[in-house]
């Protein structure tokens, strides 16, 4: 065992990268759920974003355009979910799961000619002086642009929910859609916008995996990250900054367990591999003292004329 081999600075820097796809997907889903809609199709929207972003980046040579396309593709897929749940009044849980199945299949069809292709690289921000600082440099100033975009998005969503009128309306719709409707808010329109936002964010998260974190395209490459993102929203009790905390915690435990393995710590590997999930449950139990609960109308459909 050689724990000194673990470099905490690099560990923190790489857990930030590991957590970023989760951040994107979870903050999007948080807004969706704040509006009272439960979309379990995050995994499907992520993988559509992953292939759309990848294909666009390869064809245009620009990773940034790739991210734009990924957001668009994620939002486009979420339109299906919006139609089903907001117009056809279909059950949200089933619609979301179907969306995941559909997205996984569709992405594989779209990606057939992109297997084994290397995408253009996204440059890391290199801020003179700041990036070269010891400790702080690699952690705070040594990443790619999208990582900061994800954090900025968290801040923006937090500010929107807390301070803006839009946030107020969003919460009203999510807490009691009948009352919101009576107050004259367009419940369906607001929910659709939230769903589209969620889709776009999930798409960005997917593209972050296929363009930066891995980077390559293979079928089913999101490998369950969308599900973890869904869990994170619950974990965060629908609070934006806790999403950040949760994503770093989850990404952190994963990276730490790999680090411990590489350092030869004598804990059976399979138990280390379980640890991110077990620790998440444990933290959840500890945090459960906080009784702030889910949006009251979460998962319930709204129909105006009754």
């Amino acid at each position, binding site marked *: 065992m050689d724990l000194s081999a673990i470099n905490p600075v690099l560990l923190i820097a790489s857990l930030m990268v590991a957590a970023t796809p989760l951040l994107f997907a979870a903050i999007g889903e948080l807004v969706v759920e704040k509006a009272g809609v439960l979309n379990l199709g995050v995994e499907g929207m992520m993988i559509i974003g992953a292939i759309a972003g990848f294909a666009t980046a390869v064809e245009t040579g620009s990773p940034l355009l790739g991210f734009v396309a990924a957001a668009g593709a994620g939002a486009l897929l979420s339109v*299906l979910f919006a*139609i*089903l749940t907001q117009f*056809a*009044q*279909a*059950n949200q*849980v*089933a*619609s979301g*799961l*179907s*969306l995941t*199945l*559909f*997205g*996984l*299949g*569709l*992405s*594989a*069809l779209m990606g*057939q000619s992109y297997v084994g292709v290397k995408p253009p690289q996204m440059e890391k921000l290199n801020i003179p002086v700041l990036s070269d600082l010891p400790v702080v440099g690699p952690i705070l100033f040594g990443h790619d642009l999208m990582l900061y975009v994800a954090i900025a998005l968290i801040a923006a969503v937090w500010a929107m929910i807390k301070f803006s009128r839009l946030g107020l309306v969003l919460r009203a719709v999510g807490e009691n859609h009948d009352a919101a409707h009576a107050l004259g808010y367009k419940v369906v329109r607001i929910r659709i916008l939230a769903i589209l936002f969620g889709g776009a964010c999930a798409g960005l998260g997917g593209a972050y995996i296929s363009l930066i974190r891995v980077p390559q395209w293979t*079928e089913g490459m999101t490998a*369950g990250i969308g*599900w973890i993102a*869904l*869990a994170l929203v*619950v*974990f965060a009790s629908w609070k934006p900054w806790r999403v950040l905390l949760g994503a770093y915690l989850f990404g952190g435990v994963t990276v730490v367990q790999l680090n411990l393995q590489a350092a030869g710590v004598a804990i*059976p590997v*399979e*138990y280390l*591999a*379980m640890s991110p*999930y*077990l620790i*998440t*449950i444990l933290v*959840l*139990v500890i945090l*459960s003292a906080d*009784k702030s609960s*889910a949006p009251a109308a979460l998962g319930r459909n709204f*129909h105006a*004329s*009754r």
Partner: protein
Amino acid sequence: MIRLEKRPQPSKAWSLATPLVAVLATMLAGGLLFAILGKDPVEAIRTIFWEPLFGEFAFYYRPQLLVKGAPLVLIAIGLSLGFKAGIWNIGAEGQYIMGALFGAGVGLAFYPLEAWYIFPLMVIAGGFGGWLWASIPAYLKVRFGTNEILVSLMLVYVAEQFLASMSLGLMKNPEGFGFPGSRNLQQYESAYNADLIAGTGMHWGVVAALIAVIFAYVLLNRHMTGYHIRLTGEAPRAAKFAGVNPSRLILFCLGTSGILAGLAGLFEVSGPSGQVSIDFNVGYGFTAIIVAFLGRLHPVGILLAGGLMALTYIGGDIAQANLQLPSSAIQVFQGMLLFFLLAFDLLTNFRLSFGKPEVA
């Protein structure tokens, strides 16, 4: 202008007709997809829906429908109880794995003893394994108020690691030359969940699924607990006044769905699958969630939905081989089918009306 009007009563006629309309719509949209991929759409649709039921080799595929559908129905029945009451167990996949591990563990512990009581003990152990795994989120929810969606989902990943560890370690076949995976229970008579009548696909898991359907029907329609479940889902506040004990209901719903998922795992590992291996679980626990909702959380509906899902799986594999359709196209097709089923369900509860809204 097209508007939706809620029907005072769900339409009986439409509730029977919508699945057919949805399947027809899927055939059209799916046919278009297959045509775009350069395949004969009529042939593709025929292969998926007709071949397994009435094709040349239907004698083989029909029993396979039971094998594929039984675990889906068994798990979905359990889940539907909780879903009706607003208790969200989405970790059935993990409970399925634990049921298989506990059940197979008991069987393997007795090897090579042959005795009549081994299989019943395995069934009990399988149900217990699933119950245990589902009781963790249930207990944490009752005791600490933690969210069962998250805990049950996380436990799926934990169960998968357990499964890998067991296949590589404790349950590894000692005569398997160091390769992962347990002994094959199909070759251990006392533990083998064989077809009750050879070649029919009718193993104990199928029987259990049918019993579960009847049990759920009676429970929901004739029993106080069923009434409490429905009341809690539809009117939580009224349920409180009616004296429903929410803790007991949570433990009951999660526990029951865990037992059924565990049993599904046990019947699978001791029968069609035969052994504990790293990739033993194939997603039945997640697909069953879709089956539960497709069946509108109604026991008979779940039975039919399970059969339909099984049909598209089997027909889809035939279409892959015969028409060289990629498996992703089949996945998209299944996704479409689900979308249409969900979308057309609208007609059961709502009436489309044309023209201007009447003055209220």
